[in-house]
């Protein structure tokens, strides 16, 4: 039995390979910045044809029965290519549906795959509910057919159709012009498509969303570092490449260390989450904190290391910077994450005491 399950496992590195090929082909990372069509719909279609949306759904629902470990490289490559699409809302919803205790959830997964529904996760502020709420910046909201609404309390996450009465979505022009964002408002929304009951549902939505952003950030940070190093090797001042100045080399080295450290935690957290192994909920939040911090620091320094051209619209340094800064706060700021997990962190520390 075990052998067959393991045989059916897709090698994450194969997925990475095919993601790299697809994205190299289809992503024009400056599209949104130059007011060109962003190709998000075509890319989404290609992702669907490649079966990415099926990956973690069960075979009974027409899925491929995989785990989070095959999504991690996809998220990372999306980040590296500065892709215009949001995959994680839909995937986190599928993941969460399997964490519910209801059989109806499986039918919903089948419907998501069949109808090509696209989900965005809306995080309500304390005190808000479907009766009255506004979320100022939700990734992927303009293209979402449904919202998975989560709060900070005990209430189960709710699935709401984007066209339900009382739901309104306004496209938001953010500084990150490479991806779509929307402001979502709820006013007296009564039509709830599904209540996702179950102890693990909220933690699963969160962990999946945090890890998707963490992977995206690792991909973006690595790409940013590699383009920065290339620029430093090519740019000559004082008769030599600026890459030969020790003060600059050491900064690049520090970024490399921060990125690799974060990458290690992201991989570990992704594996733990994939098998719901020990500590997955805390690890995924920790992974996002480190990965987003490494990305923001890298991208901030990238602008400085490029000098005058870093201060322009024409060069790509700011694409990374603006995305890194949004990655850091979307769906919850680093401080929100810290506050959320500090209790668990302390408890684990006390339990592990010698």
């Amino acid at each position, binding site marked *: 039995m075990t052998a067959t399950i393991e045989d059916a496992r897709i090698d994450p590195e194969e997925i990475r390979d095919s993601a790299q090929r697809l994205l190299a082909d289809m992503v024009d990372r400056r599209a949104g910045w130059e007011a060109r069509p962003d190709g998000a719909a075509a890319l989404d279609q290609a992702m669907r044809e490649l079966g990415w949306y099926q990956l973690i759904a069960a075979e009974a629902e027409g899925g491929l029965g995989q785990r989070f470990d095959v999504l991690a490289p996809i998220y990372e490559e999306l980040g590296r290519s500065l892709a215009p699409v949001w995959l994680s809302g839909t995937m986190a919803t599928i993941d969460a549906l399997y964490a519910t205790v209801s059989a109806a959830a499986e039918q919903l997964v089948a419907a998501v795959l069949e109808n090509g529904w696209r989900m965005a996760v809306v995080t309500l502020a304390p005190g808000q509910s479907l009766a009255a709420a506004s979320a*100022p*910046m939700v990734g992927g909201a303009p293209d979402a057919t449904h919202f998975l609404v989560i709060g900070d309390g005990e209430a189960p996450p709710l699935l709401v159709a984007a066209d339900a009465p009382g739901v309104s979505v306004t496209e*938001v*022009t*953010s*500084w*990150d012009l490479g991806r779509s*964002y929307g*402001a979502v408002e709820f006013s007296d929304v009564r039509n709830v498509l599904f209540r996702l009951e179950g102890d693990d549902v909220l933690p699963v939505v969160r962990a999946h969303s945090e890890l998707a952003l963490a992977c995206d950030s690792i991909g973006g940070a690595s790409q940013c570092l590699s383009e920065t190093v290339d620029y430093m090797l090519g740019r*000559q*001042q*004082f*008769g*030599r490449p600026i890459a030969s*100045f*020790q*003060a*600059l080399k050491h900064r690049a080295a520090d970024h490399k260390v921060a990125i690799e450290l974060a990458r290690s935690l992201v991989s570990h957290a992704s594996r733990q989450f994939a098998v719901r192994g020990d500590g997955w909920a805390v690890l995924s939040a920790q992974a996002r904190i480190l990965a987003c911090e490494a990305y923001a620091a890298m991208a901030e320094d990238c*602008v*400085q290391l490029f*000098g*005058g051209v*870093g*201060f*322009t*619209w*024409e060069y790509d*340094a*700011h694409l990374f*910077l603006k995305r890194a*800064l*949004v990655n850091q*706060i979307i769906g919850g*700021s680093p*401080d929100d994450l810290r506050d959320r997990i500090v209790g668990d962190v302390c408890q684990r520390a006390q339990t592990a005491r010698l």
Partner: protein
Amino acid sequence: MTDNDQLSGLRTEIRDWLAHNLPADWRDRQGGDNTAGFLAMQREWFTKLVEGGYATPHWPKEWPGGGRSLAEQIVMFEELARGGAPRMSLFFVSLYHAAMTLIECGTDAQRARHLPAILKGEVWCQGFSEPGAGSDLAALRTRAERRGDRYIVSGQKIWSTLGHFADQCLLLVRTDSSGAKQAGITFLLMDMKSKGIDVRPIRQITGDEEFAEIFLDEVEIPVENLVGQENEGWKVAQVTLSSERGLTLVELTERMALSLWRLVDAATQGTGDTGMLDRSVARSLVDISARIEAMRAMLATLMANRMAGREAVGDASILKLAYSRLSRDFTALGLRLQSFAAMRDTRYVLGAGYETGNWMFDFLNSYQYNIAGGSNEIQRNIVSERVLQMPREKLG
């Protein structure tokens, strides 16, 4: 610094003057994606400042508004900042870089031609940097060849602040490539309407078009536009680069101190209720306020030293580095506090200092202090090598 009676008199005078002259709606008029409004408001305000005698305190006393002490100049910048007046962005290079270069190194004819014109609103830009010569400015390659009574100039300048609005340009060119790279540089004044000039604005990281590229194709510049001697332009350029004598930092620091309330506002979601402040935010606010006060204090000390003729090597670099790092951290804190609002609202007000109300804009904009006019890294080289006397890295 404590004022004597004369300085406090000046403060009162400027406050009164501002009360009568500052257009209350200047932010709306020069803000947003509105170049015409920016130019019109800047010109209107500049004219008022010149009339009031507050535009040229640093000029010699034979010029209108001139002959003020450095202490008075500082008071003026402080009061204009405190009164919420717009910054003089469009005319800054004219009033400082161009005017001071002409006053110290120009000919009588050049001064007679340009200083009155500057008072009437002639806009200048600085054409020093080139694609291949940024930190290593002396590597510049724009060629000037003398033919009779003209120089024929070809090459490319880049990053010229407001170059696309300029009437005149302070231009560094190469007239000799045989010796040390600093030795063959010449300083010229270039009329931006000359034939062969193509100016293209460059879009900045903020989306704003605030600097420009200048392409020069056989541009003719009369020899009387030479400043100083041929091949001795490097010395003149140093005068240009130190012409604002730290006053920009006085102004910017004052404006930052006066914008601290915006951080409190963002931290309290506009309620002003500091009792509810998050602890870690509260501590960050204290740290930033301490650094702003320190910056003010250091400026006061170093400006006083400067007035007393006791300026030390590297002082300017220490100030610039301290300020540029502070500007990054100050705006980064605003970004953290304003959160989503900073990510979405892209409204900005040109020339408003830290008053655009959008912390992402201010954060991105703060890179200019960290890159332009000698980057942080170059300032660190100066502090370590010239102040701390560490050995130099081998440079080409």
